[in-house]
């Protein structure tokens, strides 16, 4: 069964698919031809050797909050998990003012699931945006009632564009 990992290096997004079989690992990056690797770790956690086309790649992998820092050939590669970055952004609701939900990354807004007057709960999906062939759900950061929709589905949206306004519901457990 293949696993799918959206990853970013130097602001470029990639989709990496791993198909782990008994005979080896098959890797597909974006829509390119799959290639086969022989990967191994030793007793030292973090150290990984990968044989690809018979040549060896050796790297040391350190986990970070939003991905991995990889040292290879005395150079560093910062690999961020696109999913983790998106999650932490929507969870924190960092850039959004209270009562507003905006687009976390540029893409095509393919679906808006709510209308004015709808009651939304913390964690409800209010819209879906597609970027780099990935669909990303945009979730409500708190409970509330939708007052106005600013964007239309099927249109391109830029990071930070406000999708909708809503009235924040009174809550007992204030932050």
């Amino acid at each position: 069964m293949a696993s799918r990992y959206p990853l970013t290096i130097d602001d470029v997004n990639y989709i990496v698919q791993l198909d782990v079989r008994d005979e080896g690992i098959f890797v597909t990056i974006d829509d390119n031809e799959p290639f086969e690797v022989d990967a191994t770790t030793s007793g030292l956690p973090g150290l990984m050797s990968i044989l690809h086309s018979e040549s060896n790649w050796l790297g040391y992998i350190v986990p970070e909050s939003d991905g991995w820092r990889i040292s290879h050939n005395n150079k560093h590669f910062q690999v961020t998990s696109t999913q983790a970055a998106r999650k932490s952004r929507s969870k924190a609701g960092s850039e959004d003012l209270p009562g507003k939900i905006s687009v976390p990354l540029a893409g095509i807004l393919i679906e808006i699931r709510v209308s004015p007057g709808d009651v939304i709960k913390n964690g409800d999906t209010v819209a879906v945006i597609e970027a780099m062939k990935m669909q990303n759900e945009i979730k409500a950061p708190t409970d509330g009632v939708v007052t106005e929709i600013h964007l239309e589905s099927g249109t391109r949206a830029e990071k930070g564009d406000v999708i909708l306004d809503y009235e924040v519901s009174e809550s007992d457990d204030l932050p």
Partner: protein
Amino acid sequence: MFKRILIANRGEIALRVQRTCRELGIETVAVYSEPDRNLLHVRHADRAVHIGDGPAIESYLNIEKIINAAKDSGADAIHPGYGFLSENASFADACADANITFIGPSGDAMKNLGDKVSARKIMEDANVPIVPGANDVDPANLTAAASEANRVGYPLLVKASAGGGGRGIRLVEKPEDLENAMRLASSEASSSFGNATIFFERFVSPARHIEVQIVADSHGNVSAFGERECSVQRRNQKVLEEAPSIAVNPAIREKLCAAAIAAAKGSGYENAGTVEFLMDNDGEFYFLEVNARLQVEHPVTELVYGGIDLVALQIAVADGGTVTDGLVDSGPIGWAIECRINGEDPYQNFRPSLGLIDYVEYPNGPGVRFDSMLFSGLDVPVFYDSLLGKLIVWAETRELAIQRMQRALQDLVISGPQTNIPFHRELMNNKDFQNGDIYTNWLENNFSMPEATKTEEEINLALTAAAIASLLKSQNTAGQAMPVNRVSKWTAAARKNSTQEITISSGEAGWRRGTR
């Protein structure tokens, strides 16, 4: 012979001295500051004494604490290494007062050579060529100073007599700039070194930095072990050294060594030392200064002089042993190159990069020596310099030594902080360097580090590794390391990473999937 030697240093040089002591059957005493508790010199010593907190002024520069450590541990001699207290005359005197042998020159010899004007006078008396200049310049008498400057010739350097490490030096291109440069150099010298004395030197450029290794015994004999070429420098700091020099032929070597021997004899020098010269394109050389200690780059001399152990010689002459007077004729044989491996980022203007060493793999094989403090899991403390190790190779010729260094740099793997290994790899491939067209200002004027590039293959494999790590992490989330109690602040940040490591392994054999 000494029974027990205290090594008043840390890092690779403390290990280097320990190794020789052990071979000679001498016990070693390490001293360490709080953040250095985990360093190898503490683990490898016969005894280890805690001497204070991280800042060097509270530990490795604290004369009283080190003398007390030597007394308490019963050491009968102290080896100062390089840096820290190695050229501190008060420390040498304090050792003598405590009846402990200081493995190095006397305090008086250090004082005479440490003052540049007094050193110039000693060399003049000993007929050692000095850079043409003017010794006693009175900053108040501008007319006299201007006529001295005209005699020396422009461009010239205004230098502080008490200066060092590139500080207190001003380049003057034309007469109208002299007054201002004198005022600045004099006030800088006064505030930095507490001594406003200045002097003039002709600006020799382009020049090579050539230095001669000497060992002087207490019976008036001085051995000279040929030259080292140290022209590859950044901000007056050496980054690569070699022996011999491509610009020195046997006739020049003989003259250089004779001058170095005369310098040592003229200053009453004892123990190992280095006499530094500037050399122009005609092979004319001028005395620069004496480094009254073992140098960082001493291994290149050891390798081209048949593997001689300079630390063993230092210990022997400190114990009253003798050396053969004159130029040592057992070398140079072949070629040796040393690359200083520093924790600094060559892609970001060499800014320091220290911290947890996740993983290190030492280079090995014929002709390779790696003098280093590194091991996997070391947190490199931030209090001291960025030297992590010295990669030294020997081969039959300079060309082969460069090839061997290229190979060894490829074998050396350091994961964690960014090191200057990519810089050294570029340097080895540089045509000027390969041709030996190197001068003290060459690196800063003629070399630029290319941008960091990532090939498609490197990106694909980094992505693959990250995906596999993500997969393994999701399969095994129960492997969190136990929290460690009572870590000091300096380790906390780095330790945090190591306790969050991905637990890829399951069982001793590790995890593996592949085409077996």
